């Protein structure tokens, strides 16, 4: 063999080695191993295995994705107006966004949590918090609509919320910002003496899902961050993380990061509820909105409520404790057995794992380090099950696969770390692109995880997608966790900013999904049940149009007698009783939005014409072959008798 041939062979061998190495190492960088595509490929016409409800963050909405495909199916309007769906613009939905501050058209929605039965996701409702103007919303999963929004008084920044108990007896609302309670005009310097935190317990009716603010705990003015209810042995307890135990009121990034340990609050909610029911504490005068959407009238009502029961540490002795946890915690997540409570100290160098049984022993044995405002601070070591050493930087949030492993997100080191619940040893880690916040395993917050995937919700995408100017999409990443090693399968973009998310098997929800509303059950006061009943009525300067839509016409479609200065209420009933046949209604110059009306539903858009003339209206959802012809005219006059005429059918 000549020297030249030998050299050539060596070059070949080395390059082959390089190729194979790069093939292995770039699993996250784009060169995925061959079967990843097929793992997430859901063929045309096929359906996904899981629903994934992902918070929209500063969009204020809730996005619905399919997994493993990462396809977006629907954005459910919750706290923000949505002209596409008429949400917050139709007369029926405007009351949903009313608060003690009046009509609030936006919020910041962080944490969806699904209702549970026996600690398992049950597919009935998703609860989600509004962080900015403190609220909790309930979304009905039979029609994917927001059915109820309750405002949280005495709170400011509803972050530690909604996090359901094991049978959705309660959802909680811990305040992120402590404020003077009751609100008053005081110096901000008086933070530590005047400012308090309110931890609210909202009772959920097991049948209707209706929410009722049952009681609030008034606690020291820290920043309450995230929560998780216990399960199994710990089911009567709620755990809530908090930072700023320094009670800083300025430059919190430094001043609230001084203490080596902050706290996980352990609340025996069952006991608190019993004490509240027995009349402990006192009633406080407050103002908060309670908005409920009625399925029969297809309309929301808004009521202001005036009182809440508040309990202080003295009222609930033995039901409220602080467990120290290293440093500025975010998540406090309870494993499927209900025994372990995992803290996620953003600035901590370990992941602390607290033991529920040891906590009970510490309480029994009086292992109390000190008292803060009447609340016992338990000894850290006495409650500790163990610490995960050198896990990464900036642990945030943990979910569980039901096979003995926990998965913790790390914002600073931008990775997911898998560790064992037996010996608290790290067993695997994968990078995320970039800076993961929350993560989600289907059922990973419950007693029954479907541990097939973990999804990372990232705050930063930089170079991952085609650039769209300075404002880039945020993203989710799907990892296979069925084997020993986590494996990246898919990146997909998200709406707004994804914070927490929940997922459950598709069957659980699909089987209950409504196809339409029954027209015979439509009790909207302005519903028109058949074309023969269509009409136009005048009440002073209000004109009420009782209109119907069905493929492919409106009735009536010619209206005269409207005057400039009139307020025209278009009450449009979609008479269709067929699947997937919505109609839209749009009229020129409307200062609100379209109405998008589902079969059997009635929606109302108000229109105030400003000039005389003849104006068209039309169907804005392509409904049928003659959708273009689905239109009509309304004549607007200056003065005149105002006698209304229309074409009768």
């Amino acid at each position: 063999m000549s020297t030249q041939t030998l050299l050539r062979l060596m070059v070949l061998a080395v390059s082959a080695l390089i190729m194979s190495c790069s093939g292995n190492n770039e699993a996250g960088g784009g060169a995925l191993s061959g079967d990843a595509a097929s793992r997430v490929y859901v063929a045309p016409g096929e359906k996904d295995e899981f629903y994934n409800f992902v918070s929209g963050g500063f969009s204020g909405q809730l996005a619905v994705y399919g997994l493993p495909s990462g396809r977006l199916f629907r954005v459910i309007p919750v706290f923000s107006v949505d002209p596409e769906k008429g949400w917050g613009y139709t007369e029926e939905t405007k009351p949903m966004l009313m608060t003690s501050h009046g009509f609030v058209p936006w919020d910041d929605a962080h944490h969806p949590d699904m209702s549970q039965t026996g600690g398992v996701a049950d597919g009935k409702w998703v609860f989600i918090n509004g962080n900015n103007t403190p609220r909790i919303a309930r979304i009905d999963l039979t029609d994917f609509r927001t059915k109820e929004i309750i405002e949280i008084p005495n709170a400011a920044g509803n972050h530690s919320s909604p996090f359901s108990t094991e049978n959705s007896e309660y959802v909680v609302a811990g305040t992120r910002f402590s404020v003077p309670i009751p609100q008053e005009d005081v110096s901000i310097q008086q933070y530590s003496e005047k400012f308090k935190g309110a931890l609210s317990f909202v009772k959920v009716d097991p049948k209707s899902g209706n929410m009722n603010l049952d009681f609030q705990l008034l606690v020291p003015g820290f920043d309450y961050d995230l929560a998780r209810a216990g399960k199994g042995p710990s089911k009567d307890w709620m755990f809530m993380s908090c930072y700023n135990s320094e009670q800083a009121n300025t430059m919190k990034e430094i001043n609230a990061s001084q203490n080596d340990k902050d706290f996980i609050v352990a609340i025996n909610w069952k006991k608190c509820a019993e004490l509240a029911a027995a009349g402990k504490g006192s009633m406080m005068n407050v103002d908060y909105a309670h908005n409920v959407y009625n399925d029969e009238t297809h309309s929301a009502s808004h009521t202001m409520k005036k009182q809440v029961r508040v309990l202080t540490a003295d009222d609930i002795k033995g039901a409220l404790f602080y467990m120290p946890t290293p440093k500025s915690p975010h998540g406090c997540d309870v494993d499927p057995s209900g025994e372990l409570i995992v803290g996620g100290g953003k600035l901590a160098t370990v992941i602390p794992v607290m033991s529920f049984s040891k906590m009970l022993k510490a309480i029994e044995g009086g292992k109390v380090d000190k008292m803060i405002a009447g609340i016992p601070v338990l000894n850290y070591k006495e409650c500790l099950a163990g610490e995960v050493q050198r896990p990464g930087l900036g642990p945030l949030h943990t979910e569980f696969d039901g096979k003995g492993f926990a998965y913790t997100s790390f914002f600073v080191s931008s990775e997911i770390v898998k560790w064992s619940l037996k010996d608290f040893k790290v067993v695997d880690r994968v990078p995320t692109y970039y800076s993961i916040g929350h993560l989600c395993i289907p059922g990973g917050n419950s007693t029954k995880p479907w541990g097939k995937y973990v999804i990372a919700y990232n705050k930063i995408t930089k170079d991952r997608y085609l650039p769209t100017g300075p404002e880039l999409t945020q993203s989710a990443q799907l990892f296979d966790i069925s084997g020993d090693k986590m494996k990246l399968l898919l990146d997909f973009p998200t709406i707004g900013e994804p914070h927490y998310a929940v997922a459950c098997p598709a069957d659980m929800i699909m089987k209950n999904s409504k196809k339409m509303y029954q027209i015979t059950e439509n009790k909207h006061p302005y519903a028109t049940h058949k074309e023969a009943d269509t009409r136009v009525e005048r009440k002073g300067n209000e004109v009420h149009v009782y209109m119907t839509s069905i493929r492919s016409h409106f009735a009536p479609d010619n209206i005269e007698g409207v005057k400039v200065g009139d307020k025209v209420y278009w009450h449009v009933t979609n008479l269709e009783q067929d699947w997937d046949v919505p109609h839209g209604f749009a009229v020129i110059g409307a200062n609100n939005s379209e109405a998008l009306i589902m079969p059997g539903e009635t929606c109302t858009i108000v229109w105030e014409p400003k000039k005389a003339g003849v104006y068209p209206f039309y169907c804005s959802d392509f409904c049928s072959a003659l959708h273009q012809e689905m239109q009509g005219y309304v004549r607007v006059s200056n003065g005149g008798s105002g006698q209304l005429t229309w074409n009768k059918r």
Partner: protein
Amino acid sequence: MKALHRMLMATAALALLGLFAFPMWSIWLEAPQYPKGSELGIFVHVDKVEGSRPNDLDNINNLNHYIGMKRIEPDAIPELQYMPMVVIALVGLGLLAAALGRRWVIVVWLMLLVAAGTVGMIDFYQWEYDYGHNLDPHAIIKIDGMSYQPPLIGSKQLLNFTAHSYPSIGFGFIVLAFALGAFVWWSARATVNATERQSP
């Protein structure tokens, strides 16, 4: 005629009562907008015409206004009033045949059954013809030479819809009744012959 024959004949007669529980005929309408699993269906019973789901008939009628087909209004079909009586009469006569144990009565019953079925099919065809051809001159969609009569039996493309017209469970009861009746008629003859051979 043996007791077994009488029992079988009575069963044949009573089998017709199945027509009150199940449709005789079904027409399924499939289209790109109404794919398999979501197709529209019409069930023809002896006493009613209805959709396969609560809103199907209304939805079919709503769609048919595009081609100018008149609405299918079950109340306007008089056959639905007297077909049940025909069925009851056939059940009665069948039971009578069983009671009498006479083969010729069975023959009459079988002939009447066939006659009723034939008349029914002709009538069904005529209704289909009427719906398919008697169209509103102001129809939205008009195509020269196009009619919308569903097939009597089989499948046919009608614009974007494929109409599948086939017998349904109720029809099976008619076939069962006829088969049982014919079997009794045939096998009763065999026993008569056997008795005749043995008796001398």
